[in-house]
């Protein structure tokens, strides 16, 4: 026969314990498994994009190298450092939450938010540069420069100087602009263009800048899809941080109850780790082909 434990025996109801749980341990464990499951689905979600990246990079390595070389490695590296430091401050926030130190917690969360915002700011600078240069892969989402007002590109810090003249274009419809096929030329001269690549780049028997451009466009499309999705996760993370900051300021989190801080931390680290994969795949691969600084 089933025996029963009376639900009314425990009179002590810890703060933050939700009604469906028996005790804090169960709640903590649920939140933890839930977050890991959520991150597992996030991995599969990004996984689809990584698959697309792998398929097309294997098919058009030179176009990907050319696109990658044109990304700004200084901003990219800087952002990587920013994110790694933010992971540290996040871990410290969890640490101080566990110790129940309110001010240290609040400080770490603020630092994390500043670093996260810095990352997004740098991303915005990079995206703006792409907009000005005309290398956003969607027609109409680039700076429109009407015919007759052809202009030099807006210089942004750390921007490539090598192709300054090639950017003197007019772009009335805001189309994707890419004229530099030098890397493919180089690869052609060295004889390591694959036949699949040649089929993709050649027209009229010679390297065709427009066909090469279409493949670089695929790179930039994947770049924007991946970093965009990542930035979206950062924005969500900042929202979480703002909420945590408010709660931490109110002194909600103690040595007994800190799991929201811990879960937000897991999420924050996950978003960092995605960037740790994105940075080499997008910014570094292909540097050795010599198009870099």
């Amino acid at each position: 026969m089933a025996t029963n434990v009376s639900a009314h025996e425990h009179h002590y109801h810890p703060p933050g314990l939700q009604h469906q749980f028996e005790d804090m341990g169960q709640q903590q464990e649920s939140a933890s498994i839930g977050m890991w499951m959520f991150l597992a689905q996030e991995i599969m979600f990004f996984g689809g994009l990584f698959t697309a990246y792998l398929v097309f990079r294997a098919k058009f390595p030179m176009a990907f190298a050319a696109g990658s070389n044109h990304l700004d490695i200084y901003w990219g590296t800087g952002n990587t450092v920013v994110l790694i430091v933010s992971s540290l401050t996040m871990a410290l926030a969890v640490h101080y939450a566990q110790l129940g130190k309110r001010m240290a917690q609040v400080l770490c969360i603020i630092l994390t938010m500043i670093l996260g915002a810095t990352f997004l700011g740098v991303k915005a600078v990079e995206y703006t540069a792409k907009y000005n240069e005309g290398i956003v892969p969607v027609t109409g989402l680039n700076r429109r420069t009407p015919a007759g007002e052809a202009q030099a590109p807006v210089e942004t810090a750390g921007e490539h100087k090598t192709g300054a003249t090639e950017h003197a274009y007019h772009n009335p419809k805001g189309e994707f602009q890419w004229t530099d096929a030098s890397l493919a030329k180089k690869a052609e001269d060295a004889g390591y263009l694959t036949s699949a690549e040649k089929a993709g780049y050649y027209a009229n028997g010679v390297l065709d800048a427009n066909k090469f451009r279409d493949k670089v466009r695929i790179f930039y499309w994947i770049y924007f899809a991946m970093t965009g999705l990542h930035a979206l996760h950062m924005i969500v993370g900042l929202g979480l941080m703002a909420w945590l900051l408010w709660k931490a300021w109110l002194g909600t989190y103690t040595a007994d109850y800190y799991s929201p801080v811990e879960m937000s931390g897991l999420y924050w680290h996950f978003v960092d780790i995605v960037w740790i994969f994105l940075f080499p795949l997008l910014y570094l691969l292909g540097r050795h082909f010599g198009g870099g600084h």
Partner: protein
Amino acid sequence: MIMQQNSWIPLFPEQASSFASEVDYLYFFILAVTLFFGIGCAVVIFFFAVKYREKEKFGRGADIHGSMVLEVTWTIIPFVISMIIFIFGAVVFYNLYRPPADTMDIYVVGKQWMWKFQHGTGQREINELHVPAGRRIKLVMTTEDVIHDVYIPAFRTKADVVPGRYSTLWFEATKPGKYHLYCAEYCGLNHSGMRGSVIVMPQNEFDNWLSGNTSGQTPVEAGRDLFENKLGCASCHAGGANQRGAKLEGLFGTDVKLVGGQTVKATDEYIRNSIINPGAQVVEGYQPIMPTFKGQVTEEQLVSLVAYIKSLGGNGSANMTSTAAPTAPAATGSPTTGGTTPANTAANRQGSNPNAPKNQPEPANSNR
């Protein structure tokens, strides 16, 4: 008079190709296995359900937890049987999708919503395909728009036709008659109208049909016409020792050395690629000067050019039906008129030029 039906309810399609019976054996084999297990299981379930129907309300079933021996048995036996089915099926699959070497090639272009066929000997047909019985036939297929699928139930075979590449399908028809040809991959508005028939004839009748219907150019002739006159390929690719373009005589089926040291086999696919993407695989000893013909030649013209280049000799060209009698020049001119015929008209008389322009609205290709 499509498909002579003897029974009121059709139960079984005709067998009209060399591997129809092979596929049917496989079918009946699996049917027998599944009927045995299916009926066996159903009978046992029904028997138990009746025999062990409750004697009293809220009675109790026997206290049985399971049996390792039984579990292992009914894991291993189905596994072994399914492996037998798999191997049988794998053999059939391999046979169906591996064309033999000595085939007669027929070129197929799918287009919303019609099939265009081009025989090695000159016939062009739309939605109707004449083939001789007892001959191995390979369809070399591509499409101008979306994915289609050639499906001939009486031959028990089908294959998707994918844009941007050639796919193949082979069969050997055994029984003269008229059989259904379907598009089996959903392709838009008039998908169910994209069907036609395959007409299998005895070899002599087929020959008669061929000789009586030669108003069109053969692909080889059409290809030569394009090669020498319309596209001017001959200015580089024919001219003897000092020609600027690669030598094409005897090319087909051989290994070609490329700039950069690679070697490729000169297949249909290679020749097609070399026309639309000449710079991709440049033959050793030549400059990459050939312009692309992408957008300037239709799929059908490509097919003709490939056929012509094949006819110039080489290892793999023996299968081209070069027996075709020289035919009269095409009365209707270019085979590349832009119009298309409505997919379902019965107007495609044998031998009429199927590409005569008609007022067929283009398929809706909105890029919304």
